[in-house]
């Protein structure tokens, strides 16, 4: 089973990578096909992890990032621009490839089973986090493109709106993950808060999201600054996820 998981990871990685090259070459039909194959194989990798580990694949970085790329690719196909804006496709693929590149340094195996993995709130904590990261990355793709498209854009542009909508949805998923974590901590340690890296970094993400939604001004430069901080939000979350996995 282990070798099939590794194989599906590399095949998916390669398909997404070729999809990105095709996007740069503006071969959109090939890009869509390759991304779809990448998505399907990504899904196969998740199923294999589920079968091999005996638990839904959300518990460690290899699993959660694979789930995140799967969600991100799904969002691209089902919530993306119907007109087929290849720039958004490009950024979504770049983000997927960054996550896959990070996973090169992690064992391609399911998370070992731990006693708390059976608890529903522990599962929700991890699953909502993966969902939040996927949504935030999708939002980032729109914010990045909004920044690149320059000053010619009008206020409240579609790209900015989508970036804001999906970031807010990501924030809802993140808060749901936090609430599950609160229940987990309360049941396991008798309190809903611990003074450690995990909790402090979660508070950091929450305050960061609050900052993005509270940037003052109703003019283009304010929207550009919101886009910049919003786009960086997913990077902050990836950095914290990596450092938590190393802790």
């Amino acid at each position, binding site marked *: 089973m282990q070798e099939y998981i590794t194989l599906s990871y590399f095949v998916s990685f390669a398909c997404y990578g070729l999809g990105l090259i095709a996007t740069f070459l503006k071969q959109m039909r090939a890009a869509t096909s390759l991304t779809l194959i990448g998505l399907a194989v990504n899904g196969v990798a998740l199923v294999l992890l589920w079968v091999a580990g005996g638990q839904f694949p959300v518990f460690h970085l290899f699993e959660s990032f694979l789930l995140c790329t799967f969600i991100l690719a799904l969002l691209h196909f089902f919530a993306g621009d119907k007109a087929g804006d290849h720039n958004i496709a490009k950024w979504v693929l770049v983000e997927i490839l960054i996550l896959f590149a990070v996973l090169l340094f992690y064992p391609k195996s399911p998370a*070992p*089973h*731990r*006693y*708390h*993995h*059976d*608890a529903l709130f522990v599962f929700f904590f991890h699953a909502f986090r993966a969902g939040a990261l996927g949504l935030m990355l999708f939002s980032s793709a729109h914010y990045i493109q909004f920044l690149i498209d320059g000053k010619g854009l*009008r*206020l*409240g*542009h*579609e790209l*900015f*709106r989508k970036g*804001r*909508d999906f970031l*807010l*949805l990501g*924030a*809802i998923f993140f*808060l*749901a993950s936090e*609430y599950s974590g*609160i229940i*987990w901590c*309360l*049941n*396991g*340690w*008798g*309190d*809903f*808060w*611990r*003074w*450690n*890296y995990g909790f*402090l*970094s979660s*508070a*950091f993400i929450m*305050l*960061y999201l*609050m*900052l993005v939604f*509270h*940037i*003052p001004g109703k003019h283009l430069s304010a929207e550009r600054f919101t886009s910049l901080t919003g786009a960086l939000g997913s990077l902050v979350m990836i950095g914290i996820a990596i450092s938590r996995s190393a802790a």
Partner: protein
Amino acid sequence: MRMNAEKLGTLSLTTITLVTLLLWLAWGIIINGLDAFYKSFESMNTVLLREWLLNRQGDFLLKVWFVGLCGLMVVLGMNLIFCTWSRFFWILRVNFNASRFLMLMVHLVFGLVALGHFAGFMLGYRYEDLRLGEGGVFRTSDGHEIRVETIQWAGDINAPRQTHGNAPKQGQIRETSFAETSISKGGRELHRDKAYTLAPVRYHDIQVTLKGFVRPVPSSGNRKDQSLKPVGLFVISKNPALRLFLFFYPLMILGIAVYLVLTWHETQQKTIKRV
């Protein structure tokens, strides 16, 4: 006076406070990773923060950091109050809009969540890492008596830290290992239930949490004495604000979700109208 109130309620102050809070938290995250502060942070987890703050033995720098964090949250809270006060009547009388009004409510609920969080640091009590075997009793500061009636442990007593390990049968051990505890006051039993790991016993605001099982210290000196029963590692806590906190938190999430639904296409529609 009015000018000051207006300044305290601006979005610019929100942004400045949030940026400062982020920097302050980053400082906390950095010192949390330093070996020199590890024990100090751990001491914050073992007692109620009210007691930790009043204790002279704690790390001074960490106390400065914590007080600074609370101070910044107070500024954010004041900003929230003044901002809400100035916009509340404007939204109600001048320019009523369902989504704006909902977001105002979400901000108020956030304030209550933050207050509930802070109350959890200061109110009630917390006793950490209590080792109680069968028949073991602990008396809380408010006169409650927590007694461990029976302990059932399905794992291997000689295996270290069974409940927090990663052996494959941990789930089964967790489901069949428990500590039956009773809560009494003035000699009258008020409540009795089984505490499992991740499934504590609750009676009103009192919570008896079973963190795990540990080997008892053998009096005979034989550390592999199979006749010894493990003792439970407990946390006994009381947080009067917990229920409100747990109620308002999902309410806040729900409020944001409804707000998102109401505003999903709002900006786009506005743009179309403008064009």
